[in-house]
């Protein structure tokens, strides 16, 4: 009996070992898995109770300028966006009366109550803003506010927050791809909201967010505005659109250079764009070989660029060259006239005026040649046709 019992207990021991080593972990894993499935909550705790009103999709109005303003917040989308962990009032300072009368514009340099993980200090975009302020697009120069500061792009002008867009455009082009990648993250990082946010932030920073065509669309949204550019003594961007660089962009060539490729130094962020007269600018005359050959960059441009090649003009000759060549101010309005003429004089060298004139003469020569040659050919052939037809009629 004892023996039997002992034998039985041995059997039970084996069974229990099997049970504890394999069945329980499997069951635990199963519940854990299910648990993940159920535990996901995409909704941020709305401590300030803003969503009490702002969760209604119809919420919005037309402002004084006739612009449609949407005040609806999609909880789920917001929670998964890069700012998902922030409180509303972290950025929207004030707003403590209803209706909101004390509205201040969102300032991205505000310190939000989030810890920046590398320094454990309060997070703020101030570092980027300082860099940006020193760039050509910053609205101060030598401590003074520039003329027409309202023309200059603010943070939000380029950083159009995409949290209201479908997820696909946040994660990347393929929904399936990002889901698969995300599934790998979620294995360890079980807090799904955090994971999605982190994934969005990380993948967002891993690549350029905009394609070349989108970059150009963004830059040209200001740089194609003749009036706005003229106020600052600048030409519009058509001169770029005449180049082969843009032709490649038109066809969506991945290697095609957009504005950023030449105007932002390699290994710097876009906030660093400087005027071409600044020695740190990649289009500054002595930096051109590096820029054209794209040394250290991701694209294959002109690897063996010769100094003479790199020193040349990239954008086609435009208005400024025209002004310099004619040595006049053209028919431009008041202040613009002086600014443009001033810049034309400073930026277009005599050599360039000569080049501009030579190209102009060649173009004119060809235009006349084509008109005369093709015109006389058409007349000749028409005469031939009429005469031959008439002769055939006579014969018949």
């Amino acid at each position, binding site marked *: 009996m004892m023996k039997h019992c002992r034998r039985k207990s041995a059997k039970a021991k084996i069974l229990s070992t099997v049970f504890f080593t394999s069945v329980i972990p499997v069951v635990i894993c199963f519940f854990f898995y299910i648990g993940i499935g159920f535990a996901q909550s995409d909704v941020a705790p709305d401590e300030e109770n803003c969503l009490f009103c702002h969760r209604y999709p119809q919420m919005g109005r037309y402002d004084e300028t006739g612009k449609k303003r949407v005040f609806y917040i999609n909880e789920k989308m917001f929670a998964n966006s890069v700012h998902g962990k922030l409180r509303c009032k972290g950025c929207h300072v004030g707003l403590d009366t209803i209706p909101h009368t004390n509205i201040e514009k969102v300032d991205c340099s505000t310190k939000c109550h989030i810890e920046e993980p590398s320094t454990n200090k309060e997070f703020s975009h101030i570092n980027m803003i300082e860099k940006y302020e020193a760039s050509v697009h910053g609205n101060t120069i030598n401590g003074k506010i520039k003329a027409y500061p309202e023309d200059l792009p603010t943070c939000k002008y380029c950083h159009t927050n995409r949290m209201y867009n479908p997820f696909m455009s946040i994660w990347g082009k393929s929904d399936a791809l990002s889901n698969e990648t995300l599934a790998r993250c979620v294995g360890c990082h079980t807090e799904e909201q955090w994971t999605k946010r982190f994934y969005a932030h990380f993948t967002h920073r891993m690549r350029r967010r905009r394609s070349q065509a989108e970059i150009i669309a963004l830059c040209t949204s200001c740089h194609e505005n003749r009036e706005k550019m003229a106020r600052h003594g600048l030409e519009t961007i058509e001169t770029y659109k005449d180049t*082969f660089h843009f*032709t*490649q962009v*038109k*066809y*969506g*060539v991945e290697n095609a250079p957009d504005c950023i490729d030449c105007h932002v130094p390699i290994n710097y962020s876009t906030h660093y764009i400087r005027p071409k007269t600044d020695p740190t600018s990649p289009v500054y005359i002595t930096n051109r070989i590096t820029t*054209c050959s794209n040394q250290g960059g991701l694209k294959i441009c*002109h*690897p*063996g*660029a*010769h100094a*003479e*090649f*790199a*020193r*040349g*003009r*990239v954008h086609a000759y435009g208005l400024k060259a025209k002004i310099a060549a004619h040595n006049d101010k053209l028919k431009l309005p008041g202040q613009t006239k002086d600014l443009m003429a001033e810049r034309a004089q400073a930026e277009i060298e005599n050599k360039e005026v000569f*080049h501009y004139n*030579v*190209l102009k003469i*060649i*173009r004119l020569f*060809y*235009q006349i*040649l*084509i008109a005369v*040659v*093709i015109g006389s*050919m*058409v007349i*000749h*052939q028409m*005469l*031939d*046709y*009429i*005469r*031959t*037809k008439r002769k*055939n009629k006579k014969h018949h």
Partner: protein
Amino acid sequence: MGNEPETNEKITAVKTSGSSFRNELDGEKLYFIRLNLSERVQHLIFVICFIILVITGFMTKIPKNMVNWFGEAGNIVFYYRSMLHRTAGVIMILTSAYHIYYLLFKPAGRRLLFDMLPKVKDITDMISNIRYYLGLEDSPPEFDRFCYKHKLEYGALFAGTTLMSVTGVFMWTEQNWSKFLIDISTLIHGMEAILACLAIMVWHLYEVHLRPHKFPIDHMWLTGVIDEEEMKEEYPFHYKKIMNDPRLKKIYIRS
């Protein structure tokens, strides 16, 4: 010129080559050789290269909304565009180089070169031909083997190909030259392309496709020969020259 065995060879080549077209030809009639086999092959290669070059070249000039029509296909074609354009360009340059060799060192080529040289007769022919068009003269002038139209076109082709080749090679090796030279090359390459295309369309395609008795196509570019009637009508001066010279008869009449 006096290289008769070779000329005979050429004639046999003509006979054996376009056999499918030869069936259409009437055995009773006299046929005159306008282009020999080598010239026809040169022409064919040139035509193919020209078409490829025009398409792949003007692809870079079309506006953005037209590019959008192609969608994904435009993207793929553009990927091969530069390679195709350069390949066709190189083949064209090689064909042109061979053509110069042909002009200088082959008897048929030397004849072509000699007949192609401009003469005073061309100017008088042109004036009287235009007078004929306008109804001021009753009959057109008597043209030789190549009339002023052919000579102008040939000259334009020669100059155009040279310009396109030189500027094309500059653009191909752009990083070695000053940007100003590249700008000039780009401009000339583009403008010359427009000129060449329009000239081909107006001058050449009319001549071989649209002229009332040639429509829809003049088969001479494949057969290389024209019949006696057409020869008398189009190139009477050359016809008389051939008929009065047994040596020329051997060269130009398809046996």
